[in-house]
Every structure is written in structure tokens, then in C-alpha cells.
């Protein structure tokens, strides 16, 4: 019995600009109704598909449970559509033909839970390692972290995607997974005719470690450590989203000073990422001094992090209930000074970059991700915003202290490398602005509240706008406070699905590194 279809008005109210209400709402639908519910949600303005994952609930509820998470931006709310599937035949009609951005999520579901999205356009595995025996599915409840992987001695012999043989004159470049420079591992296949790239295939998941499985059975003390290490350069954002999910699950109210400081640290993380991004982009275009200048700024931020948090990447700072340590007052002065100098430096360097023809000429018109493709394939964060997807969790679903600060969200609609570059440059300035407001308005007080797991356990959804975009974390806790199931959907998992669309079409081979750096995505975030 589908709750939504029987009350059509409620869905519109739920999704419209509404008054107060819970930040996330759960509802149930049947497998047969899921496609029509999806269709209705897609027709509503401001509604975006966010995540799709499954949980083995055979022990607790005698079924597999599918969760489809939607962002209702106008209402500042999330909707979790739960679908229970029978334990003996878990399948449902695939959403991908209707919703291309669900593609990878459903393949992951099939690999790791043996739930079949019927009529999914792709029958290939997303990230099952080659050596795994048939019938072993990572998220089946009977497998634990230590029991899940008796190896059968086979090591992965590359399962590279085989493109159909090209006509004469087409040159194929297989790049990776070991690639040039100090970069993450992943595989690209490029095909060119002359200089022009005509086809591109992506193969990720060489770095699949099983982060979500690792979290199962861990307690509140250790769970944030896992979240931080999904994608280390967005460690603070991920641990923040996870801690917020735990706080929701446990009904814990975080003290105001913790919310404020979390906002500050989240922006410090965004700053060092965006500065490093500019350095990487300068490296791609060959602007060596520009690269060095931004590396200097990034290093200053990392050293500030080490002073404030004892860790250059802000690991170990977020705990359920708030923060593990406070900032002594004198450090606020240090932060203010650094932000002021940074503002001045970024203004000057930003202008110099824009005036450097050798840099911007390589960005204009390169690697265009069209707005309609960005929408269809669920691009988020600065990558989406450079292609007209005007969404930012800090503004649309405020969390931590973002409700109390003033900032703009830069958006462009061209979707080329220059737009991606400009959005992140503007975001640096907005981050500084947010951080300064926090430093000026933060009040003394505790930074950590008690957290107790409810007697019956709990579930919670947490979110954060990481430097690369919308990151979602969902946790199901047992009554003893250990994790039953952890779901992490970093921004890069969404963005990588859109990446291939920006490659073919008026880009030449030497544009490829520029396009790749202009996206600035995380492999670890996608592979987990």
C-alpha cells in the first residue's frame, strides 16, 4: 500500500516551500509503485535525486529494504522513500531509464546486496573485485568485516572496459590505473581521430576498500574515524555529516558554539581544497609560478589546521555531540589575520590568473558539461554550479551554523573549464567571508554534548556541502550504539557519472588533463 499516492496533496506540500517540520521525512512505497512515485517527484520543481542504497533487513524485518533519498530543496527537507523487497526475490523496476543519475547506484546495489534493478541498461558489475566468488555480496548481514573476504588466491587481472573495435584511423589511449604524477589510481580510455577526442570511457573502483562495511559494528567513538578517511581531503565534511546523522538518530542537540566552530572548520577545509585546486589547474596549463603561489597558500591553511586541530586535515575533530576540542581565544586572532592576508593574496592572484591568456585560453570552451547533462546525471557542488545547477546544501538545507551566516552561491551556466575555475575562485572569497563572520560572532560555551543511543536504536541522515559538493551519510544504530549499516555518498560518486559527458566533442587530446583538473574530483570518494 503506497502512502504517497493515496495522499497526493501531501507530497506537493512536502516538496513545496513549507513551514517548520522535520528536516528529513521517511515514507514507504511498494516496488510496483516506485517508478510512478519517482516520475511524480521528478516533475516537481526543486526536487533532486540524491541517493539509492539497500540494507539487509532480513534478520530484523524479514526483507531487503531499499532507500531512495530525495532532496526537496524548496522545502529545505529530505525525503527517504523506503521500499521493502521480499527476501527470496529482491527485485524492483530499475529507475535508471527514467533517471540516468541512478545508474551507478543500482549497479552497486546489485553487486553488493544481490537486489536486482529489473531492466537496468547495464548488466556489468560496478565494483565487484574480480577474485570474488559468485554469490558473495558485501552487504549481506552474515558477512562481517573480518569474515567477508577469504581470498581464493586470484588477483584482479584488469577488467578493462572493452570498447567495440574502432574504424581505421582511430587511436586508442588506455591511461591507468597507474597514471602520470602523484595522482590517484583510476583508468581512462580515450579515443581520438587526429587530435580530437571522440570517445571516452571511465573505469573507477580500483580503490574500493569497503569503507561502509568497515563501519559495521563500530561504536560512536570510532565511527567518525572511518568517515574522515573516505576521502581525506574532505574528511571534515564527511565526519561532520556522519556526526550529524548520529546526532539525529540519537536526538542529540549540539551546543551553539560547536555549530559555529564546525562551520569555521568546514570553511577552512573548503579553502585549502580550493587553493590546491587552483594550483592543480595551473599545473595543467603550465603556469608554474601560479602553481607555486597557490601551493604556498594551501600550505598556510594546512599549517593553520595543525595549530587549531592538531591535524593538518582536521581529522579527529568531529565527534557525535560536537567537537573533541575547543579553540583558545587567542587563536581567533591568528585566524582573523590569516584570513585577511589570504583575502588580499587571492584577490591579487585571481586577477593575475584571469589576465593570463596562456592560462584562461586553455579553459574557455574546454570540457563543456552542458546544463541539461549536469541535471540529468546529478552533478553537484561547484561542478554542478558551473553548469547551471543552482544548489548548495549550506543555503538550501542549512546545517551546523550556516543558517546564521551571510554568503553568496556563485553559479555559471556555460559548464566549461573556465566556469568551473571561476566558481571555485568566487567560492574562496565566500568561504573567507563565512569564516570571518564566524570568528566575529562566536560566543563562549561548551563544544560537546552528551550522546546516548535510544533504547530501540535509531536511524539518521546527515549531510554537508563538502568542497566537491553534496555529501550524504546515513546511519542505522543498534540499541548498543554500534552501527548496523552505514551509507556514505560522497559528492564525487555523483560527479564522476557526469564527467565522461564533458570529454568528447570539440576537445583535443591535450585538453584532457585540463578538463580532468578543472573537475578536481576525488577517486577515493567515489570508490570508497
Amino acid at each position: 500500500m503506497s502512502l504517497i499516492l493515496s495522499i497526493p496533496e501531501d507530497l506537493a506540500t512536502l516538496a513545496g516551500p513549507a513551514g517548520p517540520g522535520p528536516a528529513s521525512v521517511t515514507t514507504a512505497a511498494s516496488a510496483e509503485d516506485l517508478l510512478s512515485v519517482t516520475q511524480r517527484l521528478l516533475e516537481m520543481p526543486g526536487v533532486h535525486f540524491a541517493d539509492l542504497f539497500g540494507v539487509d533487513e532480513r534478520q530484523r524485518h524479514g526483507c531487503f529494504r531499499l532507500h531512495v533519498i530525495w532532496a526537496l530543496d524548496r522545502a529545505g527537507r529530505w525525503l527517504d522513500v523506503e521500499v521493502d523487497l521480499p527476501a527470496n526475490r529482491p527485485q524492483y523496476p530499475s529507475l535508471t531509464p527514467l533517471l540516468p543519475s541512478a545508474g551507478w547506484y543500482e549497479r552497486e546495489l546489485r553487486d553488493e546486496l544481490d537486489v536486482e534493478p529489473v531492466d537496468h541498461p547495464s548488466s556489468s558489475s560496478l565494483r565487484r573485485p574480480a577474485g570474488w566468488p559468485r554469490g558473495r555480496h558485501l552487504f549481506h548481514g552474515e558477512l562481517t568485516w573480518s569474515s567477508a573476504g577469504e581470498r581464493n588466491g586470484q588477483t584482479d587481472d584488469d577488467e578493462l572496459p572493452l570498447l567495440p573495435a574502432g574504424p581505421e584511423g582511430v587511436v586508442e589511449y588506455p591511461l591507468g590505473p597507474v597514471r602520470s604524477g602523484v595522482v590517484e589510481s583510476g583508468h581512462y580510455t580515450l579515443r581520438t581521430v587526429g587530435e580530437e577526442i571522440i570517445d571516452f570511457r571511465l573505469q573507477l573502483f580500483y580503490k574500493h576498500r569497503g569503507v561502509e562495511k568497515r563501519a559495521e559494528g563500530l561504536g560512536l567513538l570510532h565511527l567518525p574515524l572511518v568517515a574522515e578517511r573516505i576521502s581525506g581531503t574532505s574528511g571534515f565534511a564527511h565526519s561532520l555529516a556522519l556526526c550529524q546523522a548520529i546526532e539525529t538518530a540519537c536526538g542529540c542537540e549540539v551546543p551553539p558554539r560547536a555549530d559555529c566552530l564546525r562551520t569555521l572548520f568546514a570553511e577552512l577545509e573548503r579553502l585549502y581544497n580550493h587553493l590546491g585546486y587552483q594550483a592543480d589547474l595551473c599545473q595543467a596549463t603550465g603556469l608554474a609560478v601560479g602553481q607555486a603561489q597557490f601551493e604556498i597558500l594551501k600550505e598556510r591553511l594546512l599549517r593553520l589546521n595543525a595549530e587549531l586541530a592538531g591535524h593538518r586535515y582536521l581529522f579527529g575533530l568531529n565527534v557525535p555531540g560536537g567537537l573533541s576540542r575547543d579553540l583558545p581565544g587567542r587563536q581567533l586572532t591568528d585566524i582573523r589575520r590569516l584570513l585577511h592576508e589570504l583575502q588580499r593574496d587571492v584577490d591579487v592572484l585571481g586577477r593575475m590568473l584571469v589576465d593570463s591568456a596562456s592560462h584562461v585560453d586553455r579553459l574557455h570552451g574546454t570540457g563543456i558539461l552542458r546544463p541539461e547533462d549536469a541535471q540529468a546525471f546529478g552533478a553537484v557542488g561547484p561542478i554542478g554550479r558551473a553548469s547551471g545547477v543552482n544548489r548548495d546544501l549550506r543555503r538550501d538545507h542549512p546545517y551546523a551554523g550556516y543558517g546564521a551566516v551571510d554568503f553568496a552561491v556563485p553559479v555559471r551556466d556555460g559548464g566549461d573549464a573556465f566556469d568551473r575555475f571561476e566558481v571555485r575562485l568566487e567560492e574562496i572569497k565566500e568561504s573567507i567571508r563565512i569564516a570571518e563572520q564566524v570568528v566575529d560572532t562566536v560566543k563562549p560555551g561548551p563544544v560537546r554534548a552528551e550522546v546516548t543511543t535510544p533504547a530501540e536504536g535509531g536511524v539518521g541522515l546527515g549531510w554537508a556541502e563538502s568542497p566537491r559538493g553534496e555529501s550524504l551519510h546515513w546511519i542505522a544504530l543498534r540499541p548498543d550504539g554500534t552501527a548496523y549499516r552505514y551509507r556514505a555518498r560522497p559528492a564525487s560518486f555523483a560527479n564522476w557519472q557526469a564527467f565522461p559527458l564533458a570529454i568528447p566533442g570539440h576537445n583535443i587530446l591535450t585538453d584532457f588533463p585540463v578538463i580532468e583538473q578543472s573537475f578536481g574530483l576525488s577517486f577515493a570518494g567515489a570508490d570508497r
Partner: protein
Amino acid sequence: MQLSWLFRGVRTGILTTRYPATQERLPDGFRGRPAIAAGAAVVAGEELCPTGAIRADNSHGFLDVGRCIQCGLCSQADGIELRPAFELAQRRRSALIEPVGAAPSGGTEEPSVLDPAAGELQRMVQRLFSRSLHIRHVDAGSCNACESELKQLTSPYYDLHRLGLFFTTSPRHADLLLVTGPVTQAMEGPLRRTYEAMPDPKLVVAVGACACSGGLFAGGPLTHAGLEEVLPVDAFIPGCPPSPLALIQGLLVAIGRLDPRGSTA
């Protein structure tokens, strides 16, 4: 416009550290490594530690620096404090496992009494590479924090090139294989092929807690518990991630220009 970049660069001046010629210090609260008092502290630490780096064991107890992910949770126990140390690299995995409360080993490497020939070969290789070395990095499943620190090595603050160390993209030109990540199943094959493509003599270095011991992912179904399960390792650089200073110390230990430190850093 190119001229203004030149002026900007010159005006910025020289920011480069002179480490190891001069000593460097990390900030006081920096979570470098735990210092554990013998007794009840070890038991409490073992409870708190997420990776089994602290083990209470009959007589004393052990701290495995190779498993430490620098989370700092152990410092909640009385008798455990964190020190901002960064010179943690060792040439042998066993040297990372320190008995709690034992006397420091004095900072020099003991000769390998079991296999004097191996020690001699090691020293010869180090003499070959001590002046200039080309490094091939492979990411075998890191979270990317290690790569971020490795990239900072060529930034003006650290300038790896002043030490005669360079990154190269081709394994054929490389002398040292630098590996981050626990070694996922999927990367084992490409990693081995990269190693085999490197001509002898060559060195292999494990960077970060994941490569040293599997870190937080040890014992799991999709990764190895560190690089040693896949390749012979010449040096281990602990940290999560190891800071650029730790990386410099570790690389210099690998090529014999620095000796590994004793157990109380």
C-alpha cells in the same frame, strides 16, 4: 603579464625549510605519536585504539607505530599523551613495534646479524641513491590525504628537488617505488607490474598507516593489510597522513642519508 608572475615569485622570497640541516618543530598540539606510560595506561589505551596499535601483553605492552592513525583517542587515558613527533620512519617493520616503557634504542640501526649479506647490499644500494633519486608513486587505495601531502613536497615550502629527489612518471626511470594505500585487491596487479617494470637496483617505500599496516582497513575483505603483503619493503613512513616533513625524513632514511630515530621521539 608573464612578467608580473616573475615579480610575484621573486617578491614572495624564499620560504623553503632547510630540514634536515636545521631542526623543524610541529605545533604543540599536533598529533604525532603517543607516548605511553607502562601499566594501566596500556590497557586503557588498547580499549580506545581503533586499529590495535596499542596492545597490552603480559609483561609490558606494545605500541605499533605502523598501525597508529594519529586519531588521538588513546590520550583520553591517564598516562598517555601525544607528542608532535614526525621523525618516525623505520627500515624494518619490526622496528615500528615498540615495547612500552623500554629504553630508547639510541637512534641507530642495528646491523642485520641474521643476514650480513642483505645488510651489505642495502648499504650499497643506499650509496648508489644517496645523491639523486627518482621516485615513482603508486596509489594503491589511499584516501588521498597521503597524495595531498606528497604533492606538497614539491611546493616552495619543502622543495624536494633541493635534496636531489624527483618524481618521475615512468617506472623505467624510477629508482624508488613509493606506495600509498593498503593495497586494494584491484590495485595489486597494476602495482606489481609497476614494480616489475622498474629496473634493478630499486627501493620500495610504504607511505602512511595504510601502506605500513593496512591502517583502519587491515583485516578487511577488499584490501591487503599493507604493502609488505605484496612487495618487499625497504622503509616504512607511518602517519595518517605523514606530513611533508615526515615524508622527507622517511625518504632520506630509505636512501641511507638519515638514520631512523630511537623509540622516544
